[in-house]
């Protein structure tokens, strides 16, 4: 269930990202709340509102980590012109480091 709803929502926002120009505007849809929408609705139904609200509080740290990640990818691609797949996948460690760093400092 989660897989299908998540796949559909993420694909839908990705299509929106495809059709808009310029690319800096289309990029907004790369940070759409697609996974959150797919997850939170089901979480409310199964675990209740407070549980889902706790997930949303942690999501703030994840979103800040997303900002750092996307800014870093943008800078590296502009500066070094490396392969997109290599930069975007290796930089996931930046997201992980920032997200878990914020968790350790504020949410633990």
């Amino acid at each position: 269930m989660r897989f299908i709803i998540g796949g559909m929502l993420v694909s839908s926002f990705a299509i929106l990202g495809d059709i808009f120009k310029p690319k800096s505007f289309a990029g907004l849809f790369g940070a759409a709340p697609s996974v959150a929408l797919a997850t939170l609705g089901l979480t409310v139904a199964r675990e209740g509102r407070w549980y889902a609200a706790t997930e949303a509080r942690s999501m703030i740290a994840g979103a800040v980590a997303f900002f750092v990640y996307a800014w870093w990818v943008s800078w590296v691609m502009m500066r070094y012109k490396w392969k997109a797949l290599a930069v975007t996948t290796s930089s996931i460690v930046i997201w992980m480091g920032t997200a878990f760093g914020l968790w350790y400092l504020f949410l633990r």
Partner: protein
Amino acid sequence: MKIQVNLSAIAETRWYEYAARFLFGGSITAIAGIIAKEYGPVIGGLFLAFPAIFPASATLIEKHEKEQKERVGLRGTKRAADTVSADASGAAIGSIGLTVFAVLVWRALPYYPAWVVLTGATMAWLAVSVLLWELRKRL
């Protein structure tokens, strides 16, 4: 630069590229659920803002830009990297909107119906993201 809608881009994307996005999106949503179940909502919630589809999208943008340039006899490596960079800068702005989405859901969800909160927070994500994009363009 004005915002434009290019519907022909839908036809340029191949079926397996749509399938890859569906798989990535579905997988991270399922994994986020498993992590929340295993480690609790505090850790699980972090993954609601995981850049799940970003590598796949960036790779597709790079591929399409290169193909366009190669059709006219150019390599397109630099242009492709610049386009991916622009897309990522847009995602950075969108992630500020995503932060606003998360704050609204965190504060409002315990008190209001879920569909109202999620719809309102999604509208807020879009409004904040577009507003910040416009502001950045003008600076």
